[in-house]
């Protein structure tokens, strides 16, 4: 077996979140270099691939399921991932992404694209994926294996979870929401 084959195939997915969880992952700083010797990042916001790959060992998911595109993506991700990790409160509870739920998707679109637009105000019907009526946590759509709470989860927590997974252990992170 070559080195590339023994490496863990890691993916990170960004649904409806602020990217803070990804920032927190980057906040593991120089430990990322050591991590890179054990993993291959096969998908993520900065990976130039057209489609989510097959046979992914671990996928970290940031963000709630908010649009039809998110829903399509999380189902594909689940079907191609061995261990699915929800990273942060938006993915686990809906958090800030779900704060629109009690006044509705239309109110959000109206506010963003009509009331606050200064030029050519219109609600986009193409390219931008349609919003679901409400944003929901990931586990309400697909089974989730590990929950890593926090807004964002602290870098040390993410690192210890990844460490456990690389060591073949199932992590059980004890950390607070928020």
């Amino acid at each position, binding site marked *: 077996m070559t080195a590339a084959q023994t490496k863990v195939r890691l993916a990170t997915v960004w649904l409806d979140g602020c990217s803070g969880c990804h920032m927190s992952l980057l906040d593991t700083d120089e430990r990322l270099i050591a991590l890179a010797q054990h993993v291959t990042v096969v998908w993520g916001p900065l990976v130039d691939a057209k489609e989510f790959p097959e046979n992914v060992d671990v996928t970290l998911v940031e963000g709630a399921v908010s649009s039809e595109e998110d829903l399509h993506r999380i189902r594909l991700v689940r079907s191609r991932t061995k261990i699915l990790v929800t990273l942060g*409160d938006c993915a686990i509870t809906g958090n800030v992404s779900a704060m629109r739920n009690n006044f509705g998707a239309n109110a959000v679109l109206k506010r963003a694209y009509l009331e606050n637009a200064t030029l050519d105000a219109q609600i986009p019907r193409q390219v931008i994926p349609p919003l679901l009526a409400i944003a929901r946590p990931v586990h309400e759509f697909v089974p989730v294996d590990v929950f890593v*709470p926090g807004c964002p989860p602290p870098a040390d927590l993410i690192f210890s979870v990844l460490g456990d997974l690389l060591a073949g252990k199932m992590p059980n992170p004890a950390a607070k929401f*928020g």
Partner: protein
Amino acid sequence: MSAHSPIRVKTLTIDGRECGAREDQTILEVARENNIFIPTLCNLPGLSNAGACRLCIVEVKGVNKLLPACVTHVSEGMEVTVNSERLAKFRRGILELVFAERNHVCSVCVTNGHCDLQSMALTLGMTHVHFPYRYPRLPVDASHERFVVDHNRCILCSRCVRVCDEIEGAHTWDIMSRGVECRVITDLAQPWGQSESCTGCGKCVQVCPTGALSEKGKSVAEMSKRRQFLPYLTLMREGRR
């Protein structure tokens, strides 16, 4: 208690440990005296017990239903279980229902990091909520000069109702409606700022376990509660009786 009615002592076991107790004590009080942890949210030493949150449910041998430890008095030979797989599962379920019922967005809450509900989720090992969230649309009343009530964060523990009635003696707070429609109210469901009975003492804000009641001007994570006054006030009043 006068000298003519001696205190009766009961013996019981909690998780197999023999405990002695006064007959007027609850299972929760005896457990605490013996350093046995039972999770609670609505209980606050110094206030009466309401049995509102049900987190303190325990098993008592010979009784088929689960009993809330905070309002169940001890009896002779009682065999109590406070830690079991079954209880842990039910307690987590109760806690998850509390989270699902309203909008508890810890990350943007005034009490983030100082919240009894948030820390209870950690204590009971709640990884996520198995029930669908309700996302109700609830009001925030900021009509009071110094305080705010945010119904999104209220867990209906009734600590505010009890402290206002029992300690301050104003009974400004109460609970309106039934079931999922329940809501804490000031006076006759008037805006807090228009309440004639409220003395503005702020005890309700300090005993509130979550961000439902807070001081104005506090931003995210800035509202920590000061509850030191409560045992002191209770003690002083008992001494006067």
